[in-house]
């Protein structure tokens, strides 16, 4: 009982520490410092093309109110969601398969290692030759950005299952299926999810890249259009909005991981 009592005492101790040292306060403070620096830099101004933080926020609320931001997101999210869903399902599937099977690894891993190292912007012309300039080309861009890191993380996660856990399963005569479902996959979950978070972030980069370099649609259109007419607050508001959505999406992934797959983390959180 001692250990649990001590652990909960330590946690309660955490609650009584100075309010300024609370993690949430510190996080908000860090955001506030960046926003203040932005506001200051905008007022100097470091460039006529660099709006202040408050101007940008005003433009952001304007675009939310007139519905243009919502419409743009609907357009941008379509290839992003399709591309990410495909990358998550195929990426985790392929990575796990390669982790379990050496032959599949030799066959597949080099492809994804090259894809991860390749500068995607340089490959976009090839994508447009092959898939045109429509939705499919953008989905392919998202997949090519998101999938390699998901595949390679899943592969490594499976490959690094502790030997003693596998021996433990074997010593209790676990079937191959049970060994995978009850030991290998749960043990790999944290690293697979780390790959998903990195992959999702790359997917967001991919979709904006596609909208800037293939055809201007959605958020990419707001950015390029407002840049061309020197409406800088709107341009930066669109960039701010896509970053905010990306961060929230990755936080949501972490929340899903903790609630569904990491009971031991929840117990200590």
């Amino acid at each position: 009982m001692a250990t649990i009592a001590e652990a909960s005492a330590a946690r309660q101790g955490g609650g009584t520490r100075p309010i300024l040292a609370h993690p949430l306060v510190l996080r908000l403070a860090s955001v506030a410092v960046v926003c203040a620096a932005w506001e200051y830099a905008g007022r100097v101004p470091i460039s006529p093309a660099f709006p202040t933080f408050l101007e940008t926020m005003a433009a952001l609320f304007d675009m939310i109110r007139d519905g243009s931001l919502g419409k743009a997101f609907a357009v941008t999210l379509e290839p992003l969601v399709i591309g990410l869903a495909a990358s998550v399902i195929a990426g985790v599937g392929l990575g796990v398969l390669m982790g379990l099977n050496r032959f599949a690894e030799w066959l597949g891993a080099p492809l994804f290692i090259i894809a991860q190292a390749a500068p995607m912007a340089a490959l976009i012309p090839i994508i447009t030759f092959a898939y045109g300039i429509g939705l499919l080309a953008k989905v392919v861009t998202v997949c090519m950005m998101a999938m390699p890191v998901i595949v390679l993380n899943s592969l490594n996660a499976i490959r690094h299952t502790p030997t003693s856990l596998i021996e433990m399963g074997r010593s209790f005569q676990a079937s191959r299926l049970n060994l995978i479902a009850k030991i290998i996959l749960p043990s790999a979950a944290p690293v697979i999810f780390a790959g998903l978070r990195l992959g999702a972030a790359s997917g967001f980069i991919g979709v904006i890249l596609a909208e800037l370099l293939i055809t201007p649609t959605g958020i990419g259109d707001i950015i390029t259009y407002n840049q061309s007419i020197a409406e800088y607050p709107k341009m930066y508001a669109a960039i701010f909005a896509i970053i905010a959505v990306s961060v929230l999406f990755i936080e949501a992934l972490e929340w899903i991981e903790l609630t569904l797959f990491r009971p031991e983390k929840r117990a200590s959180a």
Partner: protein
Amino acid sequence: MTARAEHYASPSRVAVEVRGVSKIYDGGVEALNDISLYFPEGQLTTLLGPSGCGKTTLLKIIAGLIAPTSGSVKVEGREVTGPGPERAFVFQDFALMPWASVMRNVAFGLELRGVAKTERERVAQGYIGEVGLKGFEAAYPHALSGGMRQRVGLARALAVNAKVLLMDEPFSAVDEQTRRKFQEDLLRLVAQERKTFIFVTHSIEEAVYVSDRIVLLSKRPSRVSEIITPAIDRSVDPERIRRSQAYLDTVEAIWQGLKRYLE
């Protein structure tokens, strides 16, 4: 080293028999060289030897986790071709699943065997109590000390009710005080469970304290260098065993025997 008479007069049934086992790893490392041994039923036999001598390899071959290069192992008269329900393994690094509670970890051997949840948790509950972890059923391994984690590993091995318990340096990752307590608990367990224990350690004191028989292995490639049966009366207070002359003499004799492998 006076052997206890009953070992020879009525050789109790042999639980595990190792015959001519050799192991050469890929890459040519020769771990074991023609080992032949038997392990009497209901006793605790220790494999002791210089570090890196292949004690753990031999234990894993008995467990069916590693295949020998040549030779054979029989458990209860049946040839070992892989892990079996009559053997359970206790791991040096505990091998607990960090994502599972103490209850699920202890019941995991039964879960893999398809025992229904209520039944396996009832059995696990009993062994959780027996190893002194009552109240920790819902805790996760990271919240437990090293000693408590190994108690979980021990309870998991006991829960499947195997006849042979294979323990690979189970107390080596545990602090000295906990270790002593463990050794005393192990003596009680051996007396009470009537199982065959095969125990690997590199600690001479630990081997002499807990063992009915000690198999001394030479350094790699290992052979059986000596089999010692400490004549220690274990019916007395566990504290007194460590001060008894027989205990001290046996420790000294083994040390003299092992010393030559260190130069």
